[in-house]
């Protein structure tokens, strides 16, 4: 398996606080990898640096061998990285369809007009929002907003999909649907890096897990082995436990 994303010595400093400290790991093409760790351990910050929302203080991020650290988010998006956000980000004044259309219209090469409208409908269908493209996005329930956000990320047909606690906040039935959805993405060959607190989902989805604590990686390996690791258990049961 070839590495799709290769992170080496990644650091992010916010003033005096080192949120991410010398983090290195690799995600291979077609893998679903979990990024775990207690609250405040730096997971979202790592995703932010991969997607370009934040520039790293130092370190390298290579996407299929190409250095992307420090590029703007729109340029990284064009190279095939899409994401969802921990606090779901919808475009409230737009319709559900336009929310998805936005990702089609500005990817490389863009999809626009009739082709885009057809694609939007298919994506909404796949995600469980079929026929609801004309509704206003801010009238959707929380779960449907999350669905829409994922449809927007998938519209970009990314090589690498970043999911930041996309499954949290779902009820048990919705969780099963969500897990199924991500599994279908894996079958289609997409590479996924996901931050998640729901261990059931991590076990069902991820072959490998990387665990962070206070900005550093404390474990990296097959999911079952990592979850049994003494350091990991200590980190999760410590004061930071969420």
């Amino acid at each position, binding site marked *: 398996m070839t590495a799709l994303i290769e992170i080496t010595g990644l650091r992010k400093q916010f003033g005096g606080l080192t949120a991410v400290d010398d983090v290195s790991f690799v995600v291979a093409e077609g893998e679903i990898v979990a990024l775990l760790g207690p609250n405040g351990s730096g997971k979202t910050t790592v995703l932010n640096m991969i*997607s*370009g*929302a934040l520039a790293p203080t130092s370190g390298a991020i290579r996407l299929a061998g190409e250095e992307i650290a420090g590029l*703007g*988010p*729109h340029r990284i*998006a*064009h190279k095939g990285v*899409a*994401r969802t*956000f921990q606090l779901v*980000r*919808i*475009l*409230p*004044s*737009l319709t559900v369809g*336009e929310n998805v*259309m*936005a*990702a089609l*219209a*500005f*990817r*490389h090469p*863009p999809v*626009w007009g009739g082709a885009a409208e057809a694609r939007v409908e298919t994506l909404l269908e796949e995600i469980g929002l079929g026929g609801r493209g004309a509704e206003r996005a801010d009238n959707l329930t929380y779960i449907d907003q999350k669905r829409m956000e994922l449809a*927007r990320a998938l519209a*970009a047909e990314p090589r690498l999909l970043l999911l930041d606690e996309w499954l949290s906040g779902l009820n048990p039935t919705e969780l099963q649907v969500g897990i199924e959805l991500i599994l279908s993405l894996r079958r289609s060959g997409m590479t996924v890096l996901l931050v998640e607190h729901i261990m059931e989902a991590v076990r069902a989805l991820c072959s490998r897990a990387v665990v962070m604590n206070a900005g550093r990686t404390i474990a990296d390996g097959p999911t079952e082995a990592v979850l049994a690791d003494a350091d990991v258990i200590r980190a999760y049961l410590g004061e930071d436990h969420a």
Partner: protein
Amino acid sequence: MVRALLAVIFFAGALAALAWLPTQFGAYGVGLLLGMTGYVTLASAWALFSGPTRYVSLATVAFFGIGAYTVAVLSETLPYPLILLVAAAVGLCVALVVGLATLRLAGVYFVIFTFGLAELIRQLVTWYEVNITGTLGRYIFLPISGEQIYWQLLALAAVTIGLGWWIGRSRIGLALKVIGDDEVVAAHVGINIARVKLALFAVSATIITLVGAIQAPRWTYVEPSIVFNPTISFLTLIMALLGGANRLWGPLLGAVPLFLLFEWLSANFPNHYSIILGLLFIAIVFVMPQGVLAMVERGWSRVGQRGRKAEPAGTEAAQ
């Protein structure tokens, strides 16, 4: 399809009627029409950029003045259409430089910078004319009648509003809506925010430059304090805000009544004109920041809701 065709026929007819109007008026009427169309174009062009981005620009007169001055400088050396082309090119270049330098400024800093820019350009031109050319003013002797200026402005206004209509349906229009809602999402779906803003600023500034260039022959004599008068920036801004800078017809609906009002005020209260202008400015910004159109629409929907609520009192409880 039929509706689109009817709309095209309607607007072509309206434009023809407007083009025919000067034949019904004397010189004063033509002057009034010309000034009004100038401000409709300025306000519409201003809103093209400032409406969706919410960047309040006070640089209107900087570009307007650049257009007028280009005509004044070149009026005896180049044929008229070429002068307009040069003016547009100069406006575009200045807009690109200014845009690159300032579009990262947010909020009030942008407002202050654009105001400063207009003053800076005025001072630069004044300094150049006094120290290098040796005279402050310039004469423009171009054989262009008031009607001809009016027709050019009318065409430019139509192009500007047409452009606004087209943008609303294009990818760039969607990009603007996404940026307006959430810049983080916009960047993450692949929108180059800086480029979209710069493109819009440049288009808006170029049109404004052309308004200045087209109107220049009207003055015969120009000097910096005339063509770089900051009142032009403020008027443009409150016209667009009054009508609603986020709507296609908003700036036009704001420009027409305000232009007539200011004409009347400056004729009848020449001494209190600035004070009244200032008060109106404050009133519009505070009372109707979204514009009259939005206010009317909200009023309408409230009336509609009351009507609906009054009818089927029982149905809602049943659901």
